[in-house]
């Protein structure tokens, strides 16, 4: 987000969301909450993909870790159902970050498509564990969570939970925004553009990438905790490859490197998957079509559209001026 206008638009949007949602139908509230949870996941991926240039196909792993942690604590240890909910949030972030710290040791050595492959493999490892480690994860059945916590406010109420998730989303957006605008964030972009040059300039690029990876994992874990309570069920299906692929699409669709783009992409994909699918039996064509069209014609994603319009207008304006100059010189 580079301009003041962009900032105002975002704030306006957020306010609108906050105010209008509670009045929407109960299903829409749930959908929007899902979109917000995915938005956090998408933004975490954007840090890697959009800002550092690392395409990860394994973000669902961190969502899964956070979600399973929440579920296991809630069912086997009765933990996280009161004020301890906030502790679980912190633990979710921690477990996501730690998993990323471990995985990062394997992954960061690779770049480009190799990075893609290895994050895919790591994601599959988590999936495999979730699927087969029956005694802990409930295997295919997954884990059903007890009703949402109550601590003064009752999270079981959909609108209340929406506010909590919304709050987490705004906090994530803010903290990530500060991150990408910081010198650290700038150096990540430098790595994305020209890693060899950054190295020559003396930056420890491995460390930078590693830290970005860990941070992304942490936010993924946060999304996982929120997801677990939203869905009421944690199962290996949540850690599937398709979830990571969805996250990737959300970022690419919205516009990599814009942070907010990921959130917009998330909203679109959630709408497609959970709303359109109930109206059109051939919604998968739309999904595939969206992918293909975005890739072909929208390299900057949806967020890139205003830029392109401006660009085109600037181009035609300068062409007009050139014409004027030509005619003037006669």
């Amino acid at each position, binding site marked *: 987000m580079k301009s003041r*206008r962009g900032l*105002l*638009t975002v704030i*306006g*949007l957020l*306010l*609108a*969301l906050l105010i*209008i*949602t509670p*009045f*929407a*139908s*109960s*299903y*829409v509230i*749930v959908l929007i909450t*899902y979109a917000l949870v995915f938005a956090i996941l998408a933004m975490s991926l954007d840090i890697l993909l959009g800002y550092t240039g690392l395409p990860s196909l394994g973000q669902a792993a961190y969502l899964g870790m956070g979600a399973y942690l929440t579920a296991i604590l809630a069912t086997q240890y009765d933990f996280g159902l009161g004020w301890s909910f906030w502790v679980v949030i912190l633990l979710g972030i921690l477990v996501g970050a730690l998993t990323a710290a471990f995985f990062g040791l394997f992954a960061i050595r690779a770049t480009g498509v190799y990075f893609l492959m290895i994050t895919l493999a790591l994601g599959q490892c988590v999936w495999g564990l979730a*699927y*087969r480690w*029956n005694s802990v994860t409930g*295997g*295919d*059945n*997954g884990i*059903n969570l007890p*009703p949402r916590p109550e601590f003064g406010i009752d999270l*079981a109420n959909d609108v209340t939970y929406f506010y909590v998730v919304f709050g987490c989303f705004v906090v994530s957006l803010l903290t990530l925004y500060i991150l990408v605008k910081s010198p650290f964030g700038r150096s990540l972009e430098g790595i994305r553009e020209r890693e060899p040059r950054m190295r020559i300039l003396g930056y420890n690029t491995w460390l930078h990438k590693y830290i970005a990876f860990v941070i992304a994992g942490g936010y993924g874990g946060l999304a996982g905790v929120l997801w677990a309570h939203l*869905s*009421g*069920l944690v*199962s290996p*299906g*949540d850690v599937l490859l398709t979830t990571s692929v969805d996250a990737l699409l959300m970022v690419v669709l919205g516009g990599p490197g814009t942070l907010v783009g990921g959130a917009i992409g998330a909203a679109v994909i959630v709408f497609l998957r*959970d*709303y359109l*699918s*109930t109206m059109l*039996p051939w919604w*998968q064509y739309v999904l595939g079509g969206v992918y293909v069209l975005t890739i072909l014609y929208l390299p900057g994603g949806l967020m890139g559209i*205003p830029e392109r319009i401006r660009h085109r207008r600037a181009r035609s304006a300068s062409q007009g001026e050139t014409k004027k100059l030509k005619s003037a010189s006669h």
Partner: protein
Amino acid sequence: MISRLIGKFGWKLMLGCLAVGMSVSQAAGAAAELRIGFLAPMTGIFAQVGKDMSNGFQMYLDEVGGDFAGAKVNFIVEDNEGKPPVAVRKAEKLIRQDKVQMFIGGLLASTGYALAPVSTRLKTVYIASIPAADDLTQREAAKYPYVIRTGWTSSQPNHPFGEWACEQGYKRIVAIAADYAFGYEVVGGFQKAFESCGGKIIQKIWPPLGTKDFGPYIPTFKKDADAIFTLMVGPMSLQFPKQLANAGIKKPVLGGGTSYDEFVLPSMGDEVLGHVSALQYSAALDTPKNAAFVKKYREKYGKVPSYYSESNYTTAQMIHEVFKKTKGKWPGSEKFIEMLSAIKLDTARGPVYLDDMKNPVHNIYIRKVEKRKMFGYDKDELWNTVIKTYPNVGQFWKYGKTEFLKQPVYSRDYPPCKHCE
């Protein structure tokens, strides 16, 4: 100027319109409309089963013209892709958006376990017409007051089956079953009954759900077994018998009902002749009611119905019975459950009534795969011929409810494999 305005307010405007639009588009429920939500996999690896399920229900609706004693039925089918989390999301949509009075369906046990809490959370009736997870109407039943089952429990047919196996003289059996709750409960029920009358399960193998290559498992079968007990679902049912035959194993094969279900039977070959299974339904059940059901279904949908279709057809029939009593009015969730539990009906699978844990009591049929002509069809086809009937089998068999509930739910390790070497 205008573009700047649109840029600033456009998003907000759009979102607002969207929200308002969606909230207005709710179903305005007319008093005599019955909205029934239906969840089944319409895409993915179980897509065909999902279609069989909804077709079964739909056929009954078509027979009564979509009218349950005065209530107009609005049947809304949602695709859960065979995934429990998607089932939960679609159920929420059905309840919150479409305002259904009840939702039915789900296929896998895991889906059943995922949907049950939704029914409690949102206080909506959930009729489990297929998910056979034992505990939904056993040890966990108290958690799910809005759940009622019209299908079966996984262990239900396998208790009498275990007894039957003893009667055949089998003493040592190897079990191979899909590695998830359904597999555990089917084998568990069989094992308990079989070992109570002197049999021994000497080996238990658990290939993951969806395995197609049984190469790793078949060579490990103990050579001194009398028979093999298998529980296969979906594509596994197709591949396992072929690979078993190709490996030269000629022992008798007993199976859980889904292993030879009518939805895979047409694609099977001679390798399954003589295989025996147990279930509360067989398309080859030679009763007038079933003959009519099979012929009508086959004419309409081009295939012989499986229990997936029958169970949902019977469910529709049972719901209709309730509405006949209420003269077409929705009696509210709690009363509806009460009334449905009291229904006694003669259906395509035979006589059915529900026990006090809201699970059906019905006949269990021991069936053998044979190649023959049935119901006047002129071709020799594979059918599950009924060779023995156990009437009025409940979910607790002969064990008594209290005794049965004391033991843990059948799992990978229960009953323990005492005779596994």
